[in-house]
């Protein structure tokens, strides 16, 4: 038979807001005086009386206290009574405080052709100090994303991850979808701005493999300051029409890159000349979907070559 019981007006409160607590001692708590003075303690603070204590019609003793500003994210609240020359704890409650979630921001998504998954990430916003659930929500739509077609299964990220990946079977490629992040805790719900995207417009392309070509000089006259290159598109993205750009720089301190743009995504023999400023040149290539929206691939690993 537990003698005391704490009730909080609200177990989770906005940081800095007030909270009211009541502690009641049942009349049939035989071990205590008839009308014991009920005391309160916050964490390891001093014992203090409540704002007021009264006896209820059924004989229950009730003490009420208001904590004007809850300034800690976790506070243990104790209800005690004097006991000889010490005290007895009758009950303990945990008071949590924090913030409602701010709107998640910087939502961005990439479609991975190798795993066939759309992976989105976002920034969660400032710490709420409370358990906060993030959910990636989306639905299928049409060209301008003005109205909703069928919903897509919510994507729940793994614990504490600010990223979630939607499997191919939930995606309708070449169709627009609306996608956003919802954050929720006991103090509120917020949503990120909505993105309107076709997964195929945010494909994460990988660069081609850039290779030096060994040209036999009995076929091709030796030309000083030249290099022969070849590259093949990244296989999983081969079905996408792409254009590429090549950048090269002499291995000299502070040298700038020179850019060759609008190159095809596959090249068996590419001659690059005019390379006289250094014995060794660094070259990289990257590609982007052409004629349709797309994202640049990263630059290929650097290739160090000696011009003829």
């Amino acid at each position, binding site marked *: 038979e537990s003698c005391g019981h704490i009730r909080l007006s609200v177990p989770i409160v906005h940081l800095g807001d007030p909270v009211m607590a009541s502690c009641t001692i049942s009349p049939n708590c035989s071990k205590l005086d008839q009308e014991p003075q009920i005391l309160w303690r916050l964490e390891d603070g001093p014992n203090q009386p409540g704002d007021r204590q009264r006896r209820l019609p059924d004989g229950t003793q009730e003490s009420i206290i208001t904590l004007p500003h809850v300034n800690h994210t976790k506070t243990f609240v104790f209800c005690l009574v004097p006991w000889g020359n010490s005290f007895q704890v009758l009950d303990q409650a945990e008071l949590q405080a924090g913030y409602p979630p701010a709107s998640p921001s910087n939502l961005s998504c990439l479609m991975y052709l190798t795993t*066939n998954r759309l992976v989105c990430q976002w920034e969660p916003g400032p710490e709420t100090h409370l358990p906060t659930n993030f959910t990636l929500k989306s639905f299928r739509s*049409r*060209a301008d994303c003005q109205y909703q077609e069928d919903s897509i299964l919510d994507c729940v990220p793994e614990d504490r991850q600010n990223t979630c990946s939607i499997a*191919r*079977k939930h*995606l*309708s*490629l*070449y*169709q627009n979808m609306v996608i956003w992040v919802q954050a929720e805790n006991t103090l509120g719900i917020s949503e990120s701005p909505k993105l309107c995207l076709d997964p*195929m417009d945010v494909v994460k392309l990988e660069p081609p493999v850039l290779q030096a070509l060994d040209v036999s000089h009995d076929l091709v006259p030796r030309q000083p300051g030249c290099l022969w290159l070849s590259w093949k598109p990244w296989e999983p993205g*081969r*079905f*996408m*029409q792409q254009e590429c750009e090549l950048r090269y720089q002499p291995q000299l301190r502070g040298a700038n890159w020179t850019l060759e743009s609008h190159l095809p995504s596959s090249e068996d023999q590419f001659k690059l000349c005019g390379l006289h400023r250094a014995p060794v040149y660094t070259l990289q290539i990257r590609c982007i979907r052409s*004629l*349709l929206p797309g994202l640049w691939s990263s630059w290929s690993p650097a290739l160090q070559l000696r011009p003829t």
Partner: protein
Amino acid sequence: PLPLPRSFLLKSLEQVRKIQAGNSVLLEKLVSGMCCATYKLCHPEELVLLGHSLGIPQASLSRCSSQVQQLTKCLSQLHRGLFLYQGLLQALAGISPELAPTLDTLQLDVANFATTIWQQMENLGVAPTAQPTQGTMPTFTSAFQRRAGGVLATSHLQRFLETAHCALNHLVQP
């Protein structure tokens, strides 16, 4: 002629290439990887008769010949064909655990392409009031029939896609 947006044609061409890539992987795995290597079934051309008896349908793209005059009929044939192959690929489910991922992705890609075509027909106001309903699909009573059906279906799909690619390519030329 019907105003077909260039982005629709470009996306459709890319979708065809994507499906072709997936389908040739499946065909390769089916024919040389599985049927030939494991089951000594190495000549798809020997399966024509079986294809008839199993009732493996072939989708026609007769209205999408190089001179695409009846564009509405071509789009509608394209959609019906994609819808048919979506059903056929579904009927192949369970063909083998190794092929399942490739088959699932291919089926989704075909379904998504069918949606692209259907939505464009709706945008043009030439879409039928109701989506087509799937005809009866072949039922395979043995693993051999399912393998053979798989080879035939993917071969038919490859030819269908080549015709579609030609027609779309013709339309996208400025």
